[in-house]
C-alpha cells in the first residue's frame, strides 16, 4: 500500500468513524438532520459520478431519485411488498430508467444533453402527477410504521434510522472511492478531459458513459428509495426540477470530481437553508445566490479548492 493510498483511506475512513461516533454525541435535532444529510449525500455521490467524474451535466437526476422512491413506495403501498424487496424494486427501477434514458440522451452532447435530460425528467414528473390515483400526486402518501419494519428493525426509530442512513452512505462512499481509483474510473476522468483522445486510444467511450450513467442513476435511486423508507413519505415534489438542481448544487459547492465533495456540499447547503429558512420563506434565494457565486468564483468547490492548494492526489 503506497503512502498516498494510506492517507486516502485514513481520511475517508476517518470521516466514516466520525459520523459513526457523532450518533452518540449529537443532540436529537442535529442527529435527525445528519441522517437526512447522509441520505441526500448518497444521492449527490451518485450525481457526482456522472457530473464530476465523467463530465456529463445532467439536469434530470430527479427522475432517478423519484424512480427509486416510487419503485419502493408503490411496491409497498400497492404491491404489498416488505421493505427489503421494495428497496430492491426501487433500485432496479432506477437502473432500468437510467439505462433507458442513457441510451437516448447519450446520443447528444453538451447543452443538448442537459436539455434532453431535463425534458425527460419533467415528463417523468408529470407522469407521476398524471397517475395521481396511484401516486397521490403532489400530496404524496405516507408509509406507516408497520410498513417500515426492515428485518424486524423499526426504521422510524431515530437511532435505527441513523444507522440505516449511515450504512447507505458508507456503502456509497466506499463504492465511489473504489470506482474512481479503479481503471474504469480513470477512463471516466479521461473522457471528461478529452473524449476524442480516449476514443483514439481504443476505448469504447459510449459504453463507459452508458455504464457511468447507469451506476449514477442506480445510486441516486437507492438514495431515493432509502429516503422514502427512512422518512416515511413518498411525494411528487421529489421528482420536480428542484430535486435535479439540488444535487448539482451540492456537488458544485462541495467540489465536483472529489469523493468527499458531495457530502461536504450537502452538509453545508442543508445547514445554510436550515438557518436561512428561519429568516425568510424564500429560502431558495440562498440556493440561487450560492449557485451564481460558485460558478463565478469557485468552480472547483470547497474540496476542489483544498485539492488545488494542499493535496493534489486527493481523489
Amino acid at each position, binding site marked *: 500500500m503506497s503512502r498516498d493510498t494510506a492517507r486516502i483511506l485514513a481520511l475517508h475512513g476517518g470521516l466514516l468513524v466520525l459520523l459513526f461516533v457523532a450518533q452518540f454525541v449529537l443532540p436529537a435535532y442535529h442527529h435527525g438532520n445528519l441522517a437526512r444529510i447522509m441520505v441526500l449525500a448518497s444521492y449527490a455521490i451518485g450525481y457526482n459520478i456522472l457530473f464530476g467524474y465523467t463530465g456529463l451535466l445532467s439536469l434530470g437526476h430527479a427522475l432517478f431519485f423519484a424512480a427509486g422512491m416510487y419503485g419502493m413506495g408503490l411496491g409497498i403501498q400497492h404491491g404489498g411488498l416488505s421493505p427489503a424487496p421494495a428497496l430492491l424494486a426501487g433500485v432496479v427501477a432506477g437502473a432500468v430508467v437510467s439505462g433507458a434514458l442513457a441510451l*437516448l*440522451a447519450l446520443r447528444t452532447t453538451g447543452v443538448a444533453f442537459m436539455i434532453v435530460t431535463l425534458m425527460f425528467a*419533467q415528463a417523468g414528473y*408529470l407522469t407521476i402527477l398524471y397517475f395521481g390515483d396511484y401516486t397521490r400526486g403532489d400530496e404524496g402518501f405516507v408509509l406507516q410504521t408497520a410498513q417500515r419494519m426492515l428485518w424486524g428493525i423499526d426504521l422510524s426509530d431515530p437511532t435505527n434510522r441513523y444507522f440505516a442512513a449511515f450504512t447507505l452512505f458508507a456503502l456509497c462512499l466506499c463504492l465511489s472511492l473504489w470506482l474512481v481509483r479503479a481503471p474504469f474510473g480513470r477512463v471516466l476522468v479521461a473522457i471528461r478531459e478529452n473524449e476524442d483522445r480516449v476514443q483514439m486510444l481504443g476505448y469504447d467511450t459510449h459504453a463507459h458513459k452508458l455504464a457511468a450513467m447507469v451506476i449514477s442513476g442506480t445510486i441516486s435511486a437507492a438514495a431515493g428509495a432509502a429516503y422514502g423508507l427512512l422518512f416515511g413519505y413518498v411525494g411528487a415534489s421529489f421528482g420536480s426540477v428542484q430535486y435535479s*438542481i439540488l444535487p448539482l448544487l451540492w456537488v458544485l459547492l462541495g467540489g465536483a470530481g472529489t469523493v468527499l465533495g458531495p457530502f461536504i456540499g450537502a452538509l453545508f447547503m442543508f445547514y445554510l437553508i436550515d438557518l436561512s429558512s428561519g429568516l*425568510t420563506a*424564500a429560502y431558495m434565494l440562498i440556493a440561487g445566490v450560492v449557485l*451564481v457565486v460558485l460558478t463565478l468564483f469557485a*468552480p472547483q468547490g470547497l474540496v476542489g479548492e483544498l485539492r488545488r492548494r494542499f493535496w493534489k492526489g486527493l481523489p
Partner: protein
Amino acid sequence: MEIGPYILLASLEGAVTAAVLALTAVGLSLVFGVMRVVNIAHGEFFMLGAVLAWWVANTVGGHPAIGFAAALIVAPVLVGVLAALADMTILKRLNYDPERTIVATIGLLYILQQLTLMTYGPDARPVEAPFNQRIALPWIEHTEAGWQMYYPWGLSTTSYKLAVIGAAAAVLAGVWAMMARTRIGLLMRATQADREMALAFGIPVEKVYALVFGIGAGLAALAAVLIVPIQQAHYLMGADPLLLSFIVVIIGGLGSLPGTVVAALLIGLSDGIISVFFSPTLAKILATLLVGLVLVFRPRGLFGTRAP
C-alpha cells in the same frame, strides 16, 4: 355548440397563445442564436414583465389604458436593463461557457423568483385591459332554408385579444426589420456568424452581447405585459413560458428566427386544439417527450439547417 365553431374558438384562443409565445420564444432564440448560451432564467424575465406591469399600472392609476400604456414601455425596458446588467456582471465573467452559463442562469432564476416572492408576494393579481369589448362571431350553417349566418352561443372573442395578436405581429416585424435592415442588426448577425472575426473587425462584441441579452429579456417581458390582462401576474408564472419557448425554439431550429415564429404558430394553435382532446397534464407530457426526442434524433430542429 357544434364541432366547427368549437374549433374556431380553440384556434382563436390558440392564436393569442401563439402570438405571446412567438414573442417570448424569439427572445430566447435571439439570445441562443447570437450568444450561443441557453438562458434558463428567460421565464423569470417573462414573470418580471408581468409583475412590473401590475406595479406600474397600479402606481400610475387613472384610466386603465394610461397605466397599461405606461407598463407597455416601462416593464420591458426595466427588465431589459436588468438582463443587460446580469449579462455584464455574471455571464461575461463566465466567458459565456455554455454549461457554466446554464448553472448561473438557474441561480438567477431562483434569485428573481424568490425576490419577487419576498416583495410582491404569493398572490396572483390582475391588470385591467385598456379596452375589452366582447365581439360575437358569426358562423355559417346549412339549414333547410339554405346557408344561414347566425351567432352561436359562446362563440366570441374580445377586442383586446385581437389587439394582442396584432401587437405581437407588429413587434415581430420590428425585430425582423432590426435584424435585417439596421446597422445594429448587422453587428448582431456578424457576431452570430463568427465571434472572433467580428472582434477582429472591431465590433464591440461584449456590448452586442449585453444588448442582445437585454433585448431577449425585454421581448419576454413585453409578451408578459400583453398577456397579463388575460392571465394574472404570479411569481411562479415563468415556468410554462420557459418550457413552451424551449419547445418552440428547438422545433423551429436553434437560433433561426423564421423557424421560431412558424413553430410558435404551430405549437400555439395545436396547444389550444390538443387540450380540447387530452387532459392538460397528458398534453404537457407529450410535449416534453416530443422536445426530448426531437433533440435526440433531429438535433438541428425540425426546420433547422445549421448544426447548433
